[in-house]
């Protein structure tokens, strides 16, 4: 199943609509990485509000995604992790270390604004 990816200014927003198989998740990762390069995006938001389970594979794939997009010059932030999903994740030891997270889309955008502004002012 394809996850729709929207472009909003310099950001890409991927809103997951339903449970994803491993293959779908990998596709999403690669699609986002590709689009970051294509559109020279500065930020990526992945909205996982709908996901009711985040296991080790999902965790690893999202970390890979953050890594890949960073290499292409974009920051990735994961938003919408549900309280119980977060709870289950940390019990399993999945902390998404190295990946930025925010509460929801609104917070994610605010986060990216702050982060990319910082970079521009330095550059």
């Amino acid at each position, binding site marked *: 199943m394809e996850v729709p990816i929207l472009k909003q200014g310099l950001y890409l927003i991927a809103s997951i609509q339903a449970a994803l198989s491993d293959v779908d998740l990998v596709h999403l990762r690669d699609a986002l990485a590709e689009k970051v390069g294509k559109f020279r995006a500065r930020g990526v938001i992945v909205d996982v509000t709908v996901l009711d389970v985040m296991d080790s594979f999902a965790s690893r794939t999202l970390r890979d995604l953050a890594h890949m997009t960073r290499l292409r010059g974009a920051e990735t932030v994961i938003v919408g992790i549900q309280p119980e999903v977060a709870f289950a994740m940390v019990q399993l030891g999945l902390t998404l270390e190295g990946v930025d997270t925010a509460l*929801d889309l609104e917070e994610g955008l605010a986060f990216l604004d702050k982060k990319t502004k910082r970079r521009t002012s330095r550059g």
Partner: protein
Amino acid sequence: MGDQKTKKNENRGSGASPAREVPPDDESTVSLLRELVNHLRKNRTQLREEWARRITAAKLLGAMTSEEIFAEATSVYDNYVEVLETGAVEALQAYARDLSERIIPRGVETDEVVGIVLLLRDVLARSLFAKYQTDFQLLNRILDAYEPAANRIANTVAVGFVQERERIIRQQQEAIRELSTPVLQVRERLLILPIIGVIDSQRARQLTEQLLRGIRTNRAKVVVIDITGVAAMDATVANHLVQTVEASRLLGATVIVTGLSPEIAQTLVTIGVDLGKMNTVGDLQGGIEEAERLLGYKVTPFSEVSTQPI
């Protein structure tokens, strides 16, 4: 001889008291049961009164009024006789749980419930003695049919009561735990979770769940967890604390831990926590100031009254 129809209606899977294999009924047992049930139904009024009288004499159900006792007695009597006849243990279990749910809040204790059921058994047994006393052999056969059935009923009701009681206690404990761990919103986007007293694994987990829900509901960006009031923490609970910090981050919130005693700091280090990575401040006030700083509030010295967002 032997047991009655109970075997057909027994349902082991519903967690009834350990059931034993019962030999199939023979016709005479069935007809005996029917006969004694008829007798118990015909004499319902006086037997029920006798029972109620004995309950009061034994000073049972003191927490209930006589109207209440009468109402419950009537339904218990009818159900008792019904189960004698049908052997429908599952229906009895459901009734027992239902009854327990009603009377436990009224303060009825286990020994009282067991007591009144046994009294009923005895009242009915005496009545059977009286009726069949002239024919000793028949009386024996009647009792052979009655006793196992009556004992099974007593057992079922007692077990049902105890299980219901345990369930209620568990529920209450859970509710108490929830009440005693308030998550406070003191400012926009800032939550404080003061932890006081002894925490065990269960409570720690409940704390975490409440906090995470609170972060989402209040859209908190900073959480101050104050453990000044926590005396000691073992490795398991320390782990929970770390997990709480990590889970909060996944929801986009930063956690500041305040009130870390040297002992607890030691426990954290022992389980491998890098205290350098955990955001800790000495006391709660300091933690709140740090939180406000993170949130972009202009921080003024404590002596001044208000702090304003920039």
